[in-house]
Structures are given as C-alpha cells and as structure tokens.
C-alpha cells in the first residue's frame, strides 16, 4: 500500500499528518508503539531518512517519545492529543473557509451553506 504524496509538501510532513490524524481518531492509542523506522519506510514506500525526520518532528512536537533501544511510542499525555485534535480541526476549517471566501461567499453564506449540507447529510440516511 504505497501512498500517493502531494507534490508541493515535504513527504515527512505528509506522513506526520497521516499519523497525527490516526492518533486523534484513536486508531493509534496513547502509549502505543509506532512501527520501526524501517518498517514504516517499507509500508509507505519512502526513504527511511524521511521517516526518521517524521519521527523527530513528532517528537519535537511532543506527540511521540523515543525510548532508547525500545522504539518510538505515542505520548500518554492526553492534553497533547487533545490539543493536536484542536489544531487539526483548525487547519481543516482554515482551508474550508479560505476556499469558500475564494468563491466570494460571505460569513452568512458559509454558515448557512454548511448547515444545509449537514442537514441534507442527515436526511440522506
């Protein structure tokens, strides 16, 4: 399952984003061990130096911890996971609002459009 990567964003960040959303969704639990750098590289089809960079970056952000000789683990600190969730949410909203504004829509249009969409989604079921 080699992933497709976007052209303009560093690959190490794209892998970090992917792992972060898995952590936020609880697919990867707090305290859980991440695959080794080599394993992760093989699964994603990328250079191990890239994965190493992903892990270092996530460690710097406090999302994971590396224990010497044991591997890389997701933090047990729920506050960090919560703030990660808030941050990801913000990024998504940011992109959404930017694109809507790009279409020339006002604040009311955007909220109204979103409400309608969510309602429609419910009715659809």
């Amino acid at each position, binding site marked *: 399952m080699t992933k497709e990567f976007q*052209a303009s964003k560093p690959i190490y960040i794209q892998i970090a984003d992917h792992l972060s959303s898995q952590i936020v969704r609880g697919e990867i639990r707090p305290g859980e061990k991440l695959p080794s750098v080599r394993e992760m590289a093989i699964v994603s089809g990328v250079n191990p130096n890239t994965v190493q960079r992903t892990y270092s970056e996530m460690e710097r952000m406090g999302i994971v911890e590396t224990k010497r000789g044991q591997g890389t683990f997701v933090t047990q600190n729920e506050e960090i996971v919560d703030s990660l969730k808030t941050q990801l949410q913000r990024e998504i909203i940011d992109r959404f609002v930017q694109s809507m504004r790009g279409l020339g829509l006002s604040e009311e249009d955007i909220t109204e459009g979103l409400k309608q969409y969510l309602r429609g989604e419910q009715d659809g079921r």
Partner: protein
Amino acid sequence: MAVKLSNVSKKYGKEFSLKNVSLTFETGKIYGLLGPNGSGKSTTLKMIAGLVYPNSGKVEVGNEEVSRKISKNVAYLTELDMFYPGFTVANMVDYYATQFTDFDSVKAEELLKEMKLEREKKIKQLSKGTRGRLKLVLALSRNAPVLLLDEPFSGLDPMVRDSIVKSLLSYINFDLQTMIIATHEIDEIEPLLDEAIVIFHGNIIGQKNVEELREEEGLSVLDWFKDTAKNMEAKMNG
C-alpha cells in the same frame, strides 16, 4: 561507501557523453540520476562500475581509483539483458554466487520468493518483466557497498514496481551502502530518494535534497526536473 567523480569527461567519437562532471555520493543515501535518454546517465554508472574509463578526470569508489576490479565493491544492474538463455533462474543465481564473494545466497532465496520467480524456469521462457525482476534479485543479493541500478523499472507493470520499491527498502543496508538509481521514470522513485541529480547533454545541471526542494521551493522532483530541463533547452536554443 562514498563515490566521487572529479572533473570527469567522456567522449564517444566527437560527441561528449559527459562534460567536466564532478559529483559526490555519500554512504547511506539513495540518489536519483535523472535525465532524458542519451543524457549521460548510463555512462556515469558504467564509469563507477569500471566498465568505461574517462578521457579526463578521476572516478573513485571508497578511496580507490576505479578499474575493472572495482566490481568487488560495486553491484551494477545494467539496462541490458545479460543472461544466458539456456540457464535456469537457479543456474543464474548459482553463477552469480561463484562470481562475487559478497553474494548472499540466503537473501537471494528470499528475494526470489518475494519476486515470485520460479527457480526451474529457463531464462528464455521468461517475459521481459520477469527478467527485469531477476536482474534486480541478482543485484540486491550482493552485499556490495555501492549499488548501481540502471532503469530498474523499465518494462515492469505498476504492481511490480510497488513491490520492487519495497524490496529495495527492505534489503538496503543504510549504514554501509550507497545506492544510485538512473531513470527517467521520476514519479516512481521520488519518495525513495535523498537526493536528485539532473543530467542533461552530459552536464550536471542541478542537484537537490528532495525534501528541501519541497520545503523551500514547493516543488516535487518531477516539477523541478521539468523546470530545469526547460530552462536548459531555452538557453541552448537562445
């Protein structure tokens, strides 16, 4: 093991295949040597493998100037077919084992399985794609400090390419080996690379760290390659 080209030129007749090229390849990294057909990619690899000598300049592997004997340290996957048609897959593996002291027979068996190659099949019965996989098995089974792959994806379908990328990642020893992949199929290998080098009409026209390229210029290797090549064309025609 590091590889170094210093002011290397190579002419075939009156035509320059390489023109005053200087490059350094470090241990533990994967390099992409990218360029259109006839740009000098294969010549560069052949020089590192000791199969072609420069007209001027110096090619070193480790701290040794390259000669034929460098094959002890350099595994080379050629773009050409180099098999005896009457050999079976197993014969070919055994032959390789007799030629190279660093040939790892255990690794070869694992790779044969992974690449779904049947030991008893004769080379002449194999499709082009299957021969391509066999070449890769033979090159990767050597624990050579330098691995050179010339167009490793040519003639292979996308599924096989994926599994080859995985095998490359599984079997390289990043503490000891240097890998150089020459290809014009940039998309396939971009996520594998540490560094990309663009070669055009025998000139090195750019070298970039792949992640820095994305981070600083917002470009994939393919985008960058196209830009660089286009600028070069414009310069030559203008």
